[in-house]
């Protein structure tokens, strides 16, 4: 027991007493309550085990019949009993990737706005708007998607994508190659070893990069003509539309967690940057974003996990075509949406088992992603709380 009852450690709450020394902790009711709540907590573990086990057992018939070919085949033929999961994994991954590409800059921009840049009066309304986005049920997004977003994409966005999308992607790919070459050459630090290079270093690297990019435009162009990314005609119900709707749905996740991560950076970091003369944007770059990289990665992984499992909105706008298509404006399918569509209508037991196997695959992927993501976010936010 503390000799001085007022003593605290560094202004935080006093350390907890050893409970075994309390007389009022060992009665029958105390032990019963402890056991009861512990049992309830154990039920959570049981739930996780039960989820995994049930899925595994439900998928057994299909695992037995299809074996490893389930993971490599792209045939999905319930009538003949041939099942392969590749089209759905492809659709899920591509739509989630598109969603991440769209939502990451937006989400980071909004969370920076909310934590660093916005005047106090604007913070609450914007935060409120983002919260409401998170609260809207998925089926309402799907409804909006079918009747508003899909026609909008079909009429306004897709024609532009068909005309300019392919060449833009080729150009961006060439630019990425150029930037990557410059970065790699820079990291080699050749000017340390060869003095003569120093005055022309920048120009040389960029020259090499641009030449390499230009050379590669030809092959990229050929690649994209064989597997066009944007090909008409489009109905608006496509992989791309699914990606857009998913991006709206994962935006709140990215914003909320990035906010947590940015707010965990202590003010002293920002103040030091300012004291050294950094501008607003430089402060953000140096003091806020640099230490938060790991946490933001965690946020992106959690958002990816959410996008992978999103069912209803995707089902309603993805077009339900169980094939691997390179055309982003073509209909596709995703793991969750094939289960939603076919489960209640599946006639044969093997069909249901195959759908359960897809569910098992989905569960494993989201489990792994969530575990890694939670660890990343925990590592970052706890770094400053010691």
């Amino acid at each position: 027991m503390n000799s001085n009852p007022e003593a605290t450690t560094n202004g935080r709450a006093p350390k907890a007493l050893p409970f075994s020394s309390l007389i009022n902790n060992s009665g029958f009711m105390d032990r019963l309550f402890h056991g009861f709540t512990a049992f309830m907590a154990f039920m959570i573990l049981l739930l996780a085990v039960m989820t995994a086990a049930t899925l595994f057992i439900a998928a057994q018939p299909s695992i037995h019949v299809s074996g490893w070919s389930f993971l490599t085949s792209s045939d999905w033929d319930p009538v003949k009993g041939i099942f392969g999961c590749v089209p759905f994994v492809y659709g899920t991954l591509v739509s989630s990737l598109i969603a991440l590409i769209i939502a990451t800059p937006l989400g980071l921009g909004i969370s920076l706005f909310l934590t660093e840049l916005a005047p106090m009066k604007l913070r609450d309304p914007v935060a409120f708007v983002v919260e409401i986005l998170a609260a809207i049920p998925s089926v309402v997004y799907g409804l909006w998607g079918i009747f508003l977003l899909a026609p909008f994409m079909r009429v306004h966005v897709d024609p532009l994508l068909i005309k300019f999308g392919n060449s833009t992607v080729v150009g961006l790919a060439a630019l990425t190659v150029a930037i990557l070459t410059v970065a790699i050459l820079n990291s080699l630090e050749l000017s340390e070893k060869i003095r003569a290079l120093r005055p022309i270093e920048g120009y040389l690297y960029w020259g090499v990069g641009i030449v390499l990019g230009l050379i590669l435009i030809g092959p990229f162009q050929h690649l994209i003509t064989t597997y066009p990314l944007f090909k008409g005609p489009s109905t608006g119900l496509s992989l791309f539309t699914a990606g857009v709707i998913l991006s709206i749905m994962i935006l709140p996740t990215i914003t909320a967690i990035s906010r947590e991560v940015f707010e965990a950076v202590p003010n002293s970091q920002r103040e030091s940057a300012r004291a050294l003369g950094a501008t607003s944007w430089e402060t953000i770059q140096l003091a806020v974003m640099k230490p938060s990289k790991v946490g933001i990665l965690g946020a992106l992984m959690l958002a990816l996990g959410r996008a992978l499992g999103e069912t209803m909105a995707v089902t309603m706008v993805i077009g339900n075509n169980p094939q691997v298509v390179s055309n982003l404006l073509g209909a596709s399918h995703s793991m969750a949406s094939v289960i939603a569509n076919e489960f209640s209508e599946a006639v044969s037991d093997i069909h249901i088992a195959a759908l359960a196997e897809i569910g098992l695959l989905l569960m494993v992927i989201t489990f792994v992603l969530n575990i890694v993501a939670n660890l990343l976010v925990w590592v970052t936010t706890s770094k400053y709380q010691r």
Partner: protein
Amino acid sequence: MVFLCGAASFVAMIPLVSLLLYVLLQGFKRLDWVFLTHLPTPVGVDGGGMGNAILGTITLIIIASMVGLPIGVFAGVYLSEYGKKNIFAWWVRFTADVLSGVPSIVTGIVAYTLIVKTTHHFSALAGGVALGFMMIPIVSRTTEELVKLVPHSIREASWALGVPRWRTILSIVIRTAKNGILTGILLSIARIAGETAPLLFTSFNNQFWAKGINEPTASLTVQVFTYAISPFQDWHDQAWSGALALLILVLTINLSAKVFFKNPRQLLR
């Protein structure tokens, strides 16, 4: 750069405003008392409604709460009261976080295998249990966060007066944290009220009033989905009204959660 970030916030608002406006305008056309209380009629016949769907959603929420709340709240109490340095508690917390990220359709498959396959028919019970499974991780985490916020001095004062530990937790700690716990419960209810995927093959759908929890039941979300993908204009209109009713339900619950606790979103991810 400030402009870009501000523009990002603005861009985020466009789909939201478009969605809310459209649901409001389109849904309002057919949202009336007949819609809220009558059964669906065949296509083309007037006077159809979603009464059974609304009742179904309420039934499912009640069943889910009966499954999810006791486990969730008491697990949260265990984690915050008895589980500070415990390895068992660490595993439970970790599992709860991972479980909250599992897609809802996977929970639906679990409930299907456990209940629908064994009883050989779709039922509201199966749907409610699936939703309850989803509630458990959310409620336990929010309860834990909130009970941790109760100052330790309150507990110590109670012990000093000779109150047994279990009584302290029940009557004093939980009572102090009850606003926050209620908020967590309301947020989880709002979340499951909007769930469709697990219900598609557990509670299925029903054109009539469900006569018990062992029968399949309509729910607002599944009904909106069914009508939305149908080819009938009348059903599309009803889908918008159903979506409006659903949105009002979910947003009301979310906003009332804010009444009890200032910053509820920091409890959920």
